[in-house]
């Protein structure tokens, strides 16, 4: 373990090189497009990023993180990311933070996700459910009281009602509670909650008395283990099962939700980001289907492409997560930020 002068010299020179290289030229020569946000939107963005990089052959780099919609907006409003994946529109609080940091953004819906209410395939008493019945099951007042199927509807058996649902940090939970109970994040707490939808799939597929909900993609991959419940929006309306068609023609309500990307308006000036978003919009229809999400109908999607072309700033929601907004109406609204 003798340290000679030569060793020392080497060590010192190594350190100089190290400091000179990484403090002086900290930026990579190849531009990097930074994306973060919702894990629900992730599969679509990942697919687009994969194809985009294949086409660009190393002349552009894309990174995608999954900090969640909320965590992602925090980074987005600090200007750390170029694009934000969001499974719900931006909220008032986040709009304010963005505004203070001087971050303007373009809001683009890129696909639909259909929240799917699922039961075990051996469950033979459910043919369809109404939103009112779902509300009776999921509202906070049901906690500890509605524990059997026949308490919801006397025609159903006297069997325990075992519930599975999204964890309270997810956009799925926010949207489901908003659409069914009428208030975001308002839900009973005594159910099996998981951020990992595969856990919910396992749970419902093993329990005849189970009822659960999650994104359509997880149902589509497990159709032999699960049964999707047709939903009756209002008394007198027909029961509608979730599918590409029913979501696209707007009959699967109120559980179909649009999912978004938000683009930092400053980043659009970077040619690689602009090119990436154009690539995203051009290939969205095909790639969205591939990862089991529902594409936005062509006519409406033209409006989305137009909105990006015009650099339409701000959100059409005004900071409130609404249920059942049509995309064509949304894009006609004045953008607020």
């Amino acid at each position: 373990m003798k340290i000679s002068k030569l060793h020392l010299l080497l060590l010192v020179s190594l350190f100089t090189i190290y400091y000179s290289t990484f403090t002086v030229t900290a930026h990579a020569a190849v531009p990097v497009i930074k994306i973060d946000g919702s894990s629900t939107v992730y599969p679509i963005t990942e697919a687009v990023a994969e194809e985009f990089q294949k086409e660009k052959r190393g002349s552009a780099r894309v990174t995608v993180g999954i900090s969640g919609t909320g965590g992602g907006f925090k980074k987005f409003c600090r200007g750390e990311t170029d694009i934000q994946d969001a499974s719900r529109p931006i909220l008032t609080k986040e709009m304010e933070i963005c505004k203070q940091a001087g971050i303007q953004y373009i809001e683009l819906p890129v696909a639909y996700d259909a929240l799917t209410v699922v039961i075990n395939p051996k469950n033979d008493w459910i043919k369809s459910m109404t939103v009112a019945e779902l509300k009776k099951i999921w509202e906070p007042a049901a906690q500890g009281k509605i524990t059997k199927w026949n308490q919801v509807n006397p025609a159903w058996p006297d069997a325990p009602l075992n519930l599975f649902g999204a964890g309270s940090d997810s956009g799925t939970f926010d949207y489901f509670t908003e659409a069914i109970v009428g208030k975001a994040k308002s839900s009973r707490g005594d159910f099996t909650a998981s951020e990992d939808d595969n856990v919910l799939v396992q749970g419902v597929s093993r329990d005849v008395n189970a009822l659960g909900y999650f994104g359509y993609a997880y149902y589509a991959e497990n159709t032999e283990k699960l049964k999707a419940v047709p939903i009756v929006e209002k008394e007198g309306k027909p029961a509608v099962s979730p599918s590409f068609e029913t979501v696209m023609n707007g009959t699967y309500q109120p559980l179909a939700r649009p999912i978004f990307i938000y683009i930092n308006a400053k980043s659009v000036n970077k040619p690689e980001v602009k090119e990436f978003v154009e690539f995203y919009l051009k290939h969205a229809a095909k790639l969205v289907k591939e990862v089991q999400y529902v594409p936005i109908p062509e006519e409406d999607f033209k409006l989305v492409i137009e909105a990006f072309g015009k650099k339409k700033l701000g959100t059409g929601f005004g900071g409130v997560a609404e249920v059942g907004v049509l995309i064509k109406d949304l894009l006609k609204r004045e953008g607020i930020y």
Partner: protein
Amino acid sequence: MPEQSIDHIRRMIARHKLWDHIFAIVGILSLMVGILTLLALFTELAIEGAPRIGWKLFTSFPSRHPEKAGILSAWVGTTLIMLVTAASAVPLGVASAVYLEEYARKNWLTAIIEINVTNLAGVPSIVYGLLALGLFVYKLDFGQSILSAGLTLALLILPIVIVSAREAIRAVPGSIREAAYALGATKWQTVRDHVLPYSLGGILTGTIMGLSRAIGETAPVITIGALTFIAFLPQSPFSDVFPFVSFRWLMDPFTVMPIQMFNWTSRPEAAFQHNAAAAGVILLVMTLIMNGIAIYIRYRFRKRIKW
């Protein structure tokens, strides 16, 4: 009644021997609980991941097609981060240990420092992640880079390195130090020429144990902003202009093995579960190899040293 008492003693011996056997069985059973659980886990992972383990897994980037997806960016990221972690935790940890063992006066301040170092080893890793997010990512402006992640994990394993290095240093007999002093060596000469070389085996073992803990850490790395999809490698450490080496990769974005695994387990397509299992097997093998190296190093150094 000598006969009776011999009989008595014989019975007593038999009874004690019985307890001996019972304890041996209990011991083996307890051992089995641990080993069999690990073995069962590993076998299940291996069986599930077997169809995906192969050269292509190592050379492919993540993809939406499970059969094309690989762990290239993840294993490269993990390896580079481990390099940064080792390069920063070892000098710091060994220097601290040498100071505490050889130089520091034994007073209440040293006692407090010692207690704190030991306590730090038990701090949840997410706490280090939060600290690093504020310090490395924002304050020092290293960004969400390999450097930040490496330093974060270095902080995490620093207490482990310090504690094990101290134990190794303490195991060097005092007579050796006294002999060196008697010949007129200074403290530093003694440490450099005797204490450190003799304790190197123990120090390296401790370091590798620390690194094998760091390799599986997910929470702190996610906190400082590891990514999930990244289909390019950090910049090459060699460059074609003077000085021919480049450290720009330190500032590049990254992902690591446990994050890649976690992402695959939460995908709807069942085929991704095979990928996750395959990545799990590789992560386990990486840890096993590191522990194997630790055992080998310890063996080599023990053999060389005879007092």
